[in-house]
């Protein structure tokens, strides 16, 4: 059961095919699988459907896969930070399925938990509800949303052991656990692979059963909105 691979490209070897669906972790540029995205660019795989809360920015994260036109469809909640995305979307080259953020997260979690659909009140009475089954529970309307069952999950964690037990750091956890859960195969990039036993079993955020391949590497971890306060404000 060897899960550790030498590079992001090696970790994706044999898993990619045109037209596949990929679930990606990250929120904005925080906690995105930047090394695996670069490896996807290098692979040339195309016609991808990518479920990810955001679409990166121009020149970084999923923005790179947009520039090379490898993405056919995005499933996201917010895509406002990316000029190339808007250009392709407005010209009809790129499909976009808006999902409320919590619905997207739950669709991933549900897919990973073997739940093909669930009812939620998010989006009832809005455009999001169009074409979806409505059902009443306790006198209130709920809409049916479907679980996401992706061909591949690409996620970023802080630390892993060689069995794939993962620990995330601060708000870089975000969509990574649900994205990891919903793929047939999950590939994880981490900042550090530690010895077995170095992670406290009570402090594992995602157990290794969800993780099939691991790669360690250097992360740029770009900041999208650098905001600070002055010392004298304290």
């Amino acid at each position, binding site marked *: 059961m060897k899960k550790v691979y030498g590079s992001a490209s090696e970790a994706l070897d044999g898993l990619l095919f045109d037209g596949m669906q990929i679930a990606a972790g990250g929120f904005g540029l925080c906690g995105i699988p930047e090394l695996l995205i670069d490896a996807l660019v290098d692979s040339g795989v195309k016609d991808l459907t990518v479920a990810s809360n955001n679409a990166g920015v121009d020149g970084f994260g999923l923005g790179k896969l947009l520039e090379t036109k490898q993405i056919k469809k995005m499933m996201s909640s917010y895509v406002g930070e990316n000029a190339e995305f808007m250009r392709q979307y407005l010209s009809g080259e790129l499909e976009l399925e808006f999902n409320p953020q919590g*619905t997207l997260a739950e669709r991933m979690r549900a897919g990973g938990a073997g739940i093909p659909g669930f009812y939620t009140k*998010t989006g009832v009475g809005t455009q999001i509800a169009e074409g979806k089954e409505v059902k009443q529970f306790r006198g209130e309307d709920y809409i049916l949303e479907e679980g996401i069952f992706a061909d591949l999950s690409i996620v970023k964690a802080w630390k892993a052991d060689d069995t794939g037990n993962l620990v995330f750091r601060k708000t870089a*956890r975000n969509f990574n*656990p649900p994205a990891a859960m919903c793929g047939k195969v999950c590939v994880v990039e981490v900042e550090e692979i530690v010895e077995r036993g170095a992670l406290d079993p009570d402090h594992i955020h995602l157990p290794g059963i969800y993780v099939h391949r691991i790669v360690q590497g250097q992360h740029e*971890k770009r900041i999208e909105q650098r*905001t600070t306060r002055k*010392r004298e404000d304290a």
Partner: protein
Amino acid sequence: MAAEIKGWDRNQMAARAAEELEDGMYVNLGIGIPTLVANYVGDKDITLQSENGMLGMGPFPFEGEEDPDLINAGKQTITELARTSYFDSATSFGMIRGGKIAAAILGAMEVAENGDLANWMIPGKLVKGMGGAMDLVAGVGRVIVVMDHTNKHGDSKLLKACTLPLTGKGVVDRIITNLGVLDVVDGGLRIVACADGVSEDEIRAATEATIV
């Protein structure tokens, strides 16, 4: 109607919104004026949620102490507090959808007299997405909108019916504008308070929605 309207400025609206918060509440603040509410909670024990996966959101970091792994839902660098906890997005929206968050304070483009809220898209203009707004208004205990009473053309943003695509249907509980405070009640909106120097008649004159 370009004349300068009396009433509260952004900070006074935020201060008034902070009065809505009670000791012990878990609260989600939206982007814009709602973010300023955090400056006015005073001694109250309020825990701020950031829907990207954090309870106990702290202030912006000092220069040089920014952490790319620690951002808020607006993607701004922030800090943690002694009480902070982190969790994944599914758990975060579980607590939102599950009604564990007592209140959300949000901006809006339009609010209707039946509590309909529109704040995520303008047809024909750039559509960026709803983010977590639809989940928040559907799930939290109380939805408080903070916005200007009129748009830049002087038209009422409190309407009989929303013209823009909805974020949520019948979800708004209270509206705080530069002119005053209004509640969504049976049959329309009820004036709860007037801003300094603003009369009820002036609020009525500036409002398209039915005032009961």
